[in-house]
């Protein structure tokens, strides 16, 4: 079956620009997570959705970052006024339900490069 998909796979943008990153979770998975992985580091939690609502957005670094999941399926991570420090691989994961006992299935990530 289809796994988690993310588009685009690579995104190069200039400092100050706006970007959107998309995540298509596994069908039927109600929980969706965004993580950010900088070079040489492990994934860092950004935000968690249960259905359409953001249940935990404690990992969003500042108000330039925003994410939505309007219909409880596809999610979009939006970054305004990008900075060079935003360069990283952005990972999306989905699971059948919330909570750590539900395995998270990760997508391939979007590599964002801010010039």
């Amino acid at each position, binding site marked *: 079956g289809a796994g988690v998909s993310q588009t685009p796979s690579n995104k190069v943008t200039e400092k100050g620009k706006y970007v959107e990153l998309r995540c298509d979770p596994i069908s039927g998975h109600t929980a969706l997570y965004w993580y950010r992985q900088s070079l040489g580091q492990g994934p860092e939690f950004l935000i968690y959705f249960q259905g359409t609502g953001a249940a935990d957005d404690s990992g969003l670094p500042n108000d330039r970052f925003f994410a939505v999941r309007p219909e409880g399926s596809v999610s979009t991570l939006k970054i305004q006024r990008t900075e060079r420090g935003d360069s990283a691989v952005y990972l999306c994961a989905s*699971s059948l339900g919330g909570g*750590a006992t539900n395995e998270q299935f990760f997508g391939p990530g979007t590599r964002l490069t801010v010039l």
Partner: protein
Amino acid sequence: AQSVSQHNHHVILSEAASLELGCNYSYGGTVNLFWYVQYPGQHLQLLLKYFSGDPLVKGIKGFEAEFIKSKFSFNLRKPSVQWSDTAEYFCAAGGSGNTGKLIFGQGTTLQVKP
């Protein structure tokens, strides 16, 4: 503060050697522990997990990990590695609440020489 620390950043082994990758965590309350693996060109995937019960957990591909509460550790082991185990390994911790938020370590790159 919640954190996960992996001691080894880069490990090089010959095939058939034994593997142990260290992981220590700092986490308030009940903790759930995971090891994830990322093979070259592939997605992160779950290797094994510990929630409760027997502290020795077995995962896929012959991997196992032992939860030692007194040492705040969850080390990954494999008795005999294969070239196909070459990958990056991440230890992660999560809480018992409704959120599945995971705290990851910085990862260990394992290179197995044939």
